[in-house]
């Protein structure tokens, strides 16, 4: 059991380390800059901004370290960049393997197709867990160095709740990778789907269409709420996890029946 997952995870160690280091540097930069952000009147600056912008990007607590990180690192880095990147990577898993003929070297093995791609998806946990394990440590150490220690519980909660969100993004890519069976199409589609979801969740705030946000993964993971207000949306995490499971199962089901050409 888990031979595929072990091998695939090993191949993603470099990817995981790279993402974790990049995210840590990016986060550390904001920790270092944060003292310069704390002395301005946030109400005055953002009062003229549209609600979609201030609420969508969680700008309310921009003048505190948690607020700054929530916006610059998590809203942008985690929800958009990491989400898209993981979806993009996952979209290459199946479609890419079929295109390069790699699948032909794996299908002759005596394991089921469902298991093969299921374990390949599991290997996406390596970059997801790596980035969420290493970054908070770097951020915490940084925050102690500038004498503004972050709340450990909130920080841990944020990175724990980021895992279902990122898994869900990767699952979108994975499912598209199976159903579209063309690597670049699957990759573009998964980025497109998530960008549209992000826009739906952000742009419709305060309008009649705000309810459409419930269809997007971004609706169930709010870094500002966690980091600034210590509100943990556990039900949201459950929904994201369930959605990821459904998408992966659908992908596995389809892969088990499709022709590999």
């Amino acid at each position: 059991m888990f031979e595929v997952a072990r091998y695939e995870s090993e191949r993603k160690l470099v990817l995981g380390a790279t993402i974790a280091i990049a995210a840590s540097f990016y986060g550390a930069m904001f920790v270092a800059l944060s003292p310069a952000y704390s002395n301005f009147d946030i109400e005055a600056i953002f009062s003229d901004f549209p609600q979609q912008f201030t609420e969508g990007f969680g700008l309310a607590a921009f003048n505190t370290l948690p607020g700054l990180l929530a916006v610059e690192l998590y809203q942008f880095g985690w929800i958009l960049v990491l989400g898209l990147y993981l979806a993009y990577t996952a979209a290459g898993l199946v479609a890419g393997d079929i295109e390069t003929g790699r699948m032909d070297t794996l299908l002759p093995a005596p394991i089921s197709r469902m298991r093969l791609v299921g374990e390949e998806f599991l290997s996406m946990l390596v970059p997801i867990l790596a980035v969420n394990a290493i970054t908070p440590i770097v951020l915490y150490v940084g925050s102690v160095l500038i004498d503004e220690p972050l709340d450990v519980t909130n920080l841990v909660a944020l990175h724990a709740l980021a895992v279902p969100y990122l898994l869900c993004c990767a699952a979108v890519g994975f499912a598209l990778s199976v159903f579209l069976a063309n690597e670049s199409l699957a990759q573009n589609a998964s980025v497109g789907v998530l960008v549209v979801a992000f826009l739906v969740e952000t742009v419709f705030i305060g309008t009649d269409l705000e309810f459409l946000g419930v269809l997007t993964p971004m609706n169930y993971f709010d870094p500002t709420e966690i980091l600034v207000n210590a509100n943990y949306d556990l039900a949201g995490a459950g929904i994201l996890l369930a959605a990821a499971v459904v998408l992966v199962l659908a992908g596995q089901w389809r892969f088990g029946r499709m022709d590999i050409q």
Partner: protein
Amino acid sequence: MVAIEVNGLTKDYGNVRAIESLSFAVEDGEVFGFLGPNGAGKSTTIRTLMGFQSPTDGGATVLGHDITDQSAMIEAKRQVGYIPAEMGFDEGVTGKRFLRYQASLKGDTRSEELLELFDPPMDREIGEYSTGNKRKLAVVLAFMHDPDLVIMDEPTSGLDPLMQERFYEFIRGEQAKGTTFFFSSHILSEVQKICDRVGVIRNGHLVELEDVETLLERGGKRVSVHVAESVEAGAFAIEGAHDVSVTGDEQSAQPTAADGSGDDPSTESEDAPSGGRDGTSVSFTYTGDYNALLSHLIGYDVLDLDIEDAPLEDVFMRFYGEVDPDREPSTVGRQANV
């Protein structure tokens, strides 16, 4: 028991029918060659037999397991080795690491022995491999779990001639130990060297299923005769003679047919004790009655006579030539020199 049994196997890709109503069986312990030009449906058949795609109609069993039953096929694959046409191995890992991965999936009882025979550079990343090295790795991977049946899709393309010979010898050895082989090829000399039986496929239809010997028999004999007198161009237009070539000067007596084989009959005719006498060389493929040929030859002063099996290339060429003369012969002729 039969290793592979195919019953009315049909596969469509959308509107295109790739293979149609194929039926044949591969017996335990035989080497079965699946022969045909590019695009004939060889790979489609193999991929369907491996369970990579499901048949549109008909069915097949591999080692007694239904190819459409996935859990049965997992059982079958424990005993099946496979060499894919395209070797899309992971580029970023070393041969050694990939071998270890495959071993964890299907077991490994003899990779050490195989690596001595076919030695791909295991410590290098597969991305740096030449096609020949990838092919060697593919051979090791296909046989490492000591399978009972090996299915190969054009296994020798990319191997140098020396390695090809080693591979043929290896196959013969494996066959002696009871392994069954099913492989596709468009290289006729290869089929002639190692196959017991041949299935010929073209445009998705099985057009012939024969022993290699029967196929050669049907293909007739290559006759080269050197006679003292001059011969009219039409003199050998007897029943059963094909591709007759008549050459006045024995030094230039070369058969015109593209047989591509090493042992050219005309070389032997040059050893004839003709002592520089003038004469005529005639060569042709003969599928008619031997008595008729001999009675015809009696009318000449025969200096040298050579009769041997027609190379499979010739057989095949005539075979295809009759059906689709504008495409197949060129394909076959070119591939025969590989």
